[in-house]
């Protein structure tokens, strides 16, 4: 039976480092805490280390040193328990294209130890909620890009995780679908699910997230509530006549340009 200690932060990272076999230093001493129930944005340019952090937290990448705990469960000493709390929507589409959406979701539940008698009604509901029910028995390769993203969300939610990680979930998704996805995810946070989001759509992060951390070249360069980060914005910058983006984007550019 899955027991989640809701008194602990959803994610605690202490002094996390990662150096790949090639010698590339991806993370150099990252520390981060995500409170339970938060909608947290982890922002950074390409190659900053966002996906490496997510890979380490979910068990897909080995850390070099440091400590990572999910609801108090250490990913090194108690990986199986830590993983029960997490649902992952990865950056790349990573399901078998020859399988049917229904089977992909039900099998994913099985890997979490959920029997088919429970998994099947859950899969049916998720397929309906995410507008995929008509496609339930078609091969996944026939789905559109947006549908594939939604299928990955359904797959990540079938074991009812308390901590959902979304690594650029709206990349390549049209505006209308992005809006409906955000509404759905906001509904999840209202039910107590903690969400960690990475995205390049900073205006969306600005609207959705309570807390934000900005990472650049493997180090956290700013972290706090959204209002604290936005307060770093200088209204006189950029100079008159230059392109002016949203506040978060201006802060982001300022912190990551070096």
């Amino acid at each position, binding site marked *: *039976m899955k027991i989640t200690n809701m008194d602990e932060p959803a994610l605690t990272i202490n002094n996390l480092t990662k150096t*790949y*076999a090639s010698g590339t230093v991806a993370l150099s001493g990252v520390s981060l805490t995500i409170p339970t129930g938060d909608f947290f944005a982890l922002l950074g340019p390409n190659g900053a280390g966002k996906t490496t952090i997510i*890979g380490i937290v*979910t*068990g*897909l*990448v*080995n850390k070099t040193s440091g400590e990572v705990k999910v609801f108090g469960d250490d990913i090194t000493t108690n*990986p*199986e*328990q830590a*993983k*029960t709390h*997490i649902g*992952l929507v*990865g950056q*790349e589409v*990573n*399901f*078998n*294209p020859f399988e049917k959406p229904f*089977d*992909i979701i039900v*099998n*994913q539940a*099985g*890997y*979490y*130890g*959920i*029997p088919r008698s429970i998994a099947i009604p859950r899969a049916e509901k998720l397929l309906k909620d995410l507008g995929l029910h008509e496609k339930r028995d078609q091969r996944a390769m026939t789905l559109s890009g947006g549908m594939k993203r939604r299928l990955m969300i359904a*797959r990540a939610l079938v074991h009812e995780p308390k901590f959902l990680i979304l690594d650029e979930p709206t990349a390549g998704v049209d505006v209308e679908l992005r809006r409906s996805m955000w509404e759905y995810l906001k509904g999840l946070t209202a039910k107590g699910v903690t969400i960690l989001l990475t995205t390049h759509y900073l205006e969306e992060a600005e609207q959705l997230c309570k807390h934000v951390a900005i990472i650049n070249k493997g180090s956290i360069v700013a972290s706090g509530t959204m209002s604290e980060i936005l307060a770093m914005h200088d209204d006189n910058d950029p100079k008159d006549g230059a392109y002016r983006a949203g506040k978060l984007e201006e802060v982001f550019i300022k912190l990551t340009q070096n």
Partner: protein
Amino acid sequence: MPLKSTWTSFYTILRKDVVRIFRIWPQTFLPSIVTSVLYFLVFGTIIGSQLGDFNGVSYIHFIIPGLVLLAVVTNAFTNTASTFFQAKFFSRNIDEILVSPTPPWVIIGGFVAGGMVRGILVGLLVLAVSVFFALPPLMHPFVILLFLILSSMIFALAGLVNGIYAKSFDGITIIPTFVLTPLIYLGGVFYSVASLPAIFKGFTLVNPIFYLVNGFRYGFLGFSDVSLSLSISVLLLLTTILIAINWYLLRTGLGLKQ
């Protein structure tokens, strides 16, 4: 992970593989049957009829156990190697299992059981086909069953090591072509080791196929080049070593994680 959840996870991996094996039956079942028919026809009937008896049995009776075993080991090996490698390399859907709380030994169990199902089913089909050429005696049915299980398990385990560790498509074609095939042909499928020069006998004794073929042949014909207890001991030792290698690869992520 509780025992019931562990069982569900194991069952999910196995069920998914068995469904796939039956769905693509022209790829999984037919090739070995066609090859075996050719072996029975050419070596057993045409060439075999010109050869004398082997230990009091006709040549086709002598080679039937080896040819059944040939089908078992190649199918068990190919199944786990290709299934795992494709999930890792092409669609990356192995992440579905790696992010879940499924422990390494359950992943090993699920994939190996899938390989064993295919190996044993194809072996039984080849045995059924052999009846059209010569009715094989079944001297010790339990010994046949034991070696059917051992041979499929050992080569499913070896295939899994190959599938986990392979870094390119070449990696899973080189081993069957340059390692598995020579081991099979030099393992006594078509001849008795007693007829070999002394120098080649030494090589044969370090070939696991030799122990499998002889144990299997003992089950059918009641004679063997090596004692049954030695064969079983060598094969159990090999099974233990292969389980340990697989567990180490999955626990550390070697060949799987960055």
